[in-house]
């Protein structure tokens, strides 16, 4: 098992193929009788008020997404650091905590400005 990502490729083929094969089964077994009323979106029995649900979204989601991006990028730096932490010694140890402190300042600012409040 030297080239394991080749195995991941094989796995990917299986992962794509299996759901497709599974979805062929209802094609063969299940009835298919589309009807205009049946194909409307479900809104607890009412006629859907709007033609489409693809509208704007709450700006809160956007704030969370921005803070998430900052921290997600941080994890990209933190994982290699954690991997070599014990070899790098004092320098890496202090440097990383400076890095985290800088990020925490940003986090504190986001918290103070209310980006983390759900309104």
């Amino acid at each position, binding site marked *: *098992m030297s080239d*394991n*990502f080749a*195995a*991941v490729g*094989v*796995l*990917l083929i*299986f*992962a794509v193929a*299996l*759901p*497709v094969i599974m*979805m062929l*089964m*209802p*094609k063969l*077994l*299940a*009835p*298919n009788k*589309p009807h*205009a009323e*049946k*194909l*409307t*979106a*479900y*809104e*607890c029995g009412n006629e*859907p008020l*709007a033609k*489409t*649900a*693809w*509208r704007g*979204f709450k700006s809160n*989601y956007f704030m*969370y*997404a921005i803070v*998430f991006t900052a*921290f*997600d990028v941080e*994890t990209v730096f*933190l*994982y290699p650091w*954690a*991997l070599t*932490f*014990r*070899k790098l*010694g*004092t320098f890496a*140890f202090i440097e*990383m*905590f400076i890095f*985290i402190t800088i990020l925490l300042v940003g*986090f504190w600012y986001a918290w103070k400005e209310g980006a*983390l409040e*759900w309104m």
Partner: protein
Amino acid sequence: MDALNKLPLNIAAAIRGLFGDPHSIWADLTMTVIGIILVIVLIVLAALILILLERKVGGWASQRPGPNRLGPRGWFQTIADALKLLGKEDVTPAEADRFIFKIAPMIVFALPMMTLAVIPYGMGMVPIDLDLGIIYYLAISAISTLALLMAGWGSNSNYSMLGGMRAVAQMISYEIPLIFSLLGVVMITQTFSLSKIVEAQSTIPFIVIQPLAFVIYFIAGIAEVNRAPFDLVEADQEIVAGPFTEYTGLRWGLFFLGEYGNMTATAALITTMFLGGWQGPGFLPGIVWFFLKVGIIIFLMMWIRWTFPRMRVDHLMGLAWKVLLPLSLLNVLLTGLGIYIYQYVLRIGG
């Protein structure tokens, strides 16, 4: 017991022996395919058993019998449900984005298959042994966020859209403490490989050294698979079934299978990272220990689901950002300090 532990390895070696060169590419391919098929069997079995177990635990928690009609004590209920789903019509709403609507459940179903294939189930029993195991697991499991948003968006229904939005907000929020909580283990073991992490726990499981990380990962893991008390995504009383509202038949069943597969994968990763994986006292083979630990974690998740009420959405986001994230950073700091003192001040190990 050693013989039982090595039995799967010996079977694997025997299958490899059937080929002229036991380390040729064809032997490798065959072993990979066998491993993948076993993983698929595991997911289907896990879903069948867990769905029944969930209802039984639910019955136990709310003092009612649970399913008890079909077969002995209702044990065949899930099989009947699965067969019924096969014969149900597959409805695609007229206004839906058809392609996205159709592939979203397939992605949800494919992900636990991808993640469970890198978990070490026993000594040398890793379907695909990756050096980047943790990174691979986190990267793949993060895609389920996208799949739920695709389901919500593709359905073009208000409830689905709300559910999809909630899914993204909740899952990206809990992903950060989830990822940070695993950092401590990586700092101790100095490897991303899941099988090496299990080997490092031969003397002591990491739950003893990293109790805080375990609790953070457990909470964030439940939130990542959208189970109660964090089931805002599919909160039945508010938004019908969230992203799954418009799905019918087997396509809805794929979501269900994927959900239970994801739950198994989360429990398997908790077992691997914190509970010592297949390591355990020698009177049981490793694979039995592994599934025993996974079972305990899953039972805990079900117990929590049937005990706690759903969280409010602002509390949910607050918990992720204002409690779990600082705590997980604190855990990284404490682990770093601990290793530093251990290695440079006391000069042990290293």
